[in-house]
């Protein structure tokens, strides 16, 4: 597997910043404050590099903010916990989804996957879709793809539709997410999905080409 040039930057950025899954403090309301650019191995003077690092830091901040909101929303929903009764799982998933939807009623596409971070993702993913591994990744995406998934923020991922396997070479090149979130790629589009609530939190079109 090749590693895109920006991968090092992503790793450096996210290593320098606290882990995405770490406890977060409540962030101030939007707009997001300017991010601190962490140290990287790449030339600090390159404005493109600094821009990318800032965009990734901003992505992390937005993810953290979502997790904090989710935690608050979860307080008003039945707990997602182990049970012998599938109805309880379903009710907890639905309750959490409803609470998040209410808490993010004004959420818009691009709130987390901002245009800047989308551009980085496309740059990071593009080399991974070339060559032998790239061809295989495309096969995997095609192979597992459900016929259609309506792309809408706060919409549930359709029940009974396959959750496409995320090709490992793409996954390991994307910024790490806390366990409450995951990436899924449906067709050419990338979805940021809440694993417990089964919600589409955000999405980006044409993530893979």
């Amino acid at each position, binding site marked *: *597997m090749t590693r895109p040039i920006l991968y090092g930057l992503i790793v450096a950025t996210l290593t320098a910043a606290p882990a995405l899954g770490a406890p977060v403090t409540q962030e101030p309301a939007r707009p997001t404050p300017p991010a601190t650019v962490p140290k990287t191995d790449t030339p600090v003077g390159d404005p493109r590099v600094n821009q990318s690092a800032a965009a990734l830091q901003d992505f992390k901040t937005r993810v953290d903010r979502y997790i904090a909101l989710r935690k608050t929303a979860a307080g008003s929903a039945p707990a*997602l*916990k*182990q*049970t*012998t*009764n*599938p*109805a309880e*799982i*379903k009710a907890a*998933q639905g309750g959490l989804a409803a609470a998040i939807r209410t808490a993010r009623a004004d959420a818009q596409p691009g709130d987390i996957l901002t245009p800047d971070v989308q551009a980085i993702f496309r740059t990071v993913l593009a080399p991974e879709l070339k060559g032998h*591994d790239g061809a*295989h*990744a495309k096969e*995997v995406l095609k*192979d*597992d793809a459900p016929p259609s998934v309506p792309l809408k923020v706060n919409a549930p991922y359709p*029940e*009974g539709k*396959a*959750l*496409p*396997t*995320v*090709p*490992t*070479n793409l*996954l*390991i090149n994307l910024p*790490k997410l806390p*366990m409450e979130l*995951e990436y899924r790629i449906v067709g050419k589009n990338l979805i940021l999905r809440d*694993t*417990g609530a*089964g919600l589409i939190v955000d999405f980006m079109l044409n993530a893979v080409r």
Partner: protein
Amino acid sequence: MRRLPARRLLAFVLLAVSAAALSAQELRLPLKDDSVRFAVIGDTGTGDSHQMSVSNQLNTYRAKFPFDFVLMMGDNLYSGDSPKDYEKAFERPYKALLDAGVKFYASLGNHDNPNERLYKAFNMNGERYYTFKAPNSSVRFFALDSNYVDDKQLAWLDKELAASGSDWKVCFFHHPLYSSGETHGSAELQRGLLEPVFLKYGVNVVLSGHEHFYERIKPQKGIQYFIVGSSAKVRTGDLRTSELTAKGWDQGYGFMLVEISGDELFFQEISDKGETIDAGSLRRAGKTEPNPGRSTQPVEQAPAAPKQPVAR
């Protein structure tokens, strides 16, 4: 020509049918004292008559081979994850086994909602990937989520395998790292990440589903791979027998029984009609030095040829 009396003819036919049925349900496992015994099913979650016919055979064989638990290779619920889906595709088909105290250990397929991890009867401890040890044995199992192999899961696997002192390390997950399937084929991307870890820590056996057929792969770098993905769905004609194939069958539904005793592992793949599709044994060859091209605890295969081979 002398005509046989009708009653005699009927008795003869019944006898012949019974003999065939008994022969079809022949157990090829040794039933050794203190062995670890389990069943393997994959891609089960349809709730249809094919899943039921496989579950009926599981019940029949358990009377002869009292296995304690069942490993599930993913795609446990195809239609959705409503309570009705759990009932239709899991609780009803395996009721007799569940009532008898048989435990099921599930892994997640691409058709599964990851929240299935919270369903206690799947014994996933609320996790997408987990490990457990067969009681009073040196056999440890590692259930992985091959739909989402990220750094976190790899780090977990590395840590758990390193800490496992078990002689037998059995990994199971949905996507087969080696396969001769036309529709899916080998999951090469997952293989690129998982296989080096398996080799490093001496994984001996890997079980998967996803392909809707049975395939026993020739040992790869000292690891034995099985695909058991036809416990409710079959993709007839999809198996393109290749240099990887030791034995394969894509003509019907089936499940596998496994027995581990000391350094030996015995397996028997059985169809929904009770016929033996494949049977044989493996032996742990002892520890070897770390080598990127071979598992540190490789297995050697010594399969016993089925008496009436039905595999192509």
